């Protein structure tokens, strides 16, 4: 049903229906060169738009504006809405790197059923970069000598953390490790979002924040963050605290049940 809430599910095998649907939407978005397309949206993070928030300061906050989680939540939502323009009710999948400590098959295989896999790589095009970028994204997973993927035990321990600042900082550090571990374009904010696995990684980060919110609520989020803008998404931090109000939730499984035939049969 158009406009109803969607459930974000774990990255599954390439032939899983929700992954096939997501792949179809990504393929369609990647074929668009205009502002509805993947290339344009990927460009919000690093080159050419540089909107991402990782370590920025803000004069209204004492040490550092911890916009890492809210900014990326708004970013995921923006892409998800653009993908739903292509395929109704499609939802972003999350790569649980704490349990599946390798590139998932759905993102690793270059071709599926004789067609190139839009989750494997993407031709990034940034003509205004210096030098201009026009090439397919690359990865080198597991080659960084120190970077590693946080374990499920570490994530469970982090979910018990009660202080928002510590939770955000530690989760951001686990996130930084994933970027280093995947390597290649993912290891640099300039090009990271052009790699389709960026969004599966950040969907996992967003899910961990969601799980933390279920446990601890939003009371620990500092008041001085709530009105800060999340550019260019037209939202403020307070607008992205409730995932259900944004039209999505995280689930272990969801199966669409055909009712039309029964009701009208």
């Amino acid at each position, binding site marked *: 049903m158009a406009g109803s809430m969607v459930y974000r599910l774990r990255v599954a095998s390439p032939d899983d229906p929700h992954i096939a649907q997501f792949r179809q939407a990504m393929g369609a978005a990647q074929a668009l060169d205009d502002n509805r397309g993947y290339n344009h949206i990927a460009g919000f993070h*690093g*080159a*050419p738009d*540089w909107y*991402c*928030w*990782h*370590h*920025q*300061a*803000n*004069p209204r906050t004492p*040490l*550092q504006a911890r916009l890492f989680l809210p900014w990326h939540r708004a970013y995921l939502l923006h892409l998800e809405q653009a993908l739903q323009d292509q395929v109704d009710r499609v939802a972003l999948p999350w790569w649980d790197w704490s349990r599946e400590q390798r590139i998932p098959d759905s993102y690793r295989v270059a071709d599926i059923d004789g067609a190139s896999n839009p989750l494997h790589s993407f031709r990034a095009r*940034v003509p205004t*970069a*210096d030098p201009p*970028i026009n090439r397919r994204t690359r990865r*080198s997973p597991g*080659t*960084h*000598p*120190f*970077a*590693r993927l946080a374990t499920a035990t570490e994530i469970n321990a982090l979910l018990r953390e009660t202080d928002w600042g*510590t939770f955000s*900082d*530690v989760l951001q*550090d*686990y*996130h*930084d*490790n994933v*970027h*280093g571990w995947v*390597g290649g374009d993912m*290891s*640099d*904010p*300039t090009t*990271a979002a052009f790699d389709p696995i960026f969004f599966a990684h950040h969907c996992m980060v967003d899910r961990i924040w969601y799980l933390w919110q279920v446990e601890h609520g939003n009371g620990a989020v500092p008041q001085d963050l709530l009105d800060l803008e999340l*550019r260019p998404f037209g939202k403020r931090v307070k607008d992205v605290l409730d995932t259900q109000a944004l039209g999505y939730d995280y689930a272990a499984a969801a199966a669409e049940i055909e009712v039309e035939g029964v009701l009208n049969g």
Partner: protein
Amino acid sequence: MAEKYVFGPFAHGAGPDFKRADLEFYSIDHFRPSFVGRIYFNDPDVDFDTATEDRPSYAGSFAIFGHEKCAGNVGHCDLPGERRRFDDRPSHPLTRAFKRVVVTDALRKACDEGEELTITVVVASAEDGKRKKTSKKKGKKKEKPHYKRLFDFKGMQLVTFD
């Protein structure tokens, strides 16, 4: 190239009953390739080859999602100086980073060893992994990096909480 920094020995000042200890790094320059720092207490001899997470002196680690090369025109990656009064735009993406590493268990152990602490930080980038693999092969000539050190920061603080 992997780097190693040894700080101390200094008096850690931790009392007997702290509940948590954090090691904080201030103002880290991340106009660099992504790198990871591993921290060791009272182990100044640890180096890149021995800096494992199962080493008894291991205290924790931090990762930096680094911006390796400037993709803009001249000046694009230069941090601006003092902001103008009415400039309320978000700060530059390369504003220096803050990192906090929870080191509670490692500091408790160090407290058992005495009142002084030595902190060793070993940092490495993906390039070090390649170098390790191809150390005997003749590699192609690398472009000179725009930075002097991989790990450049302005302050560090060990904080304990009751």
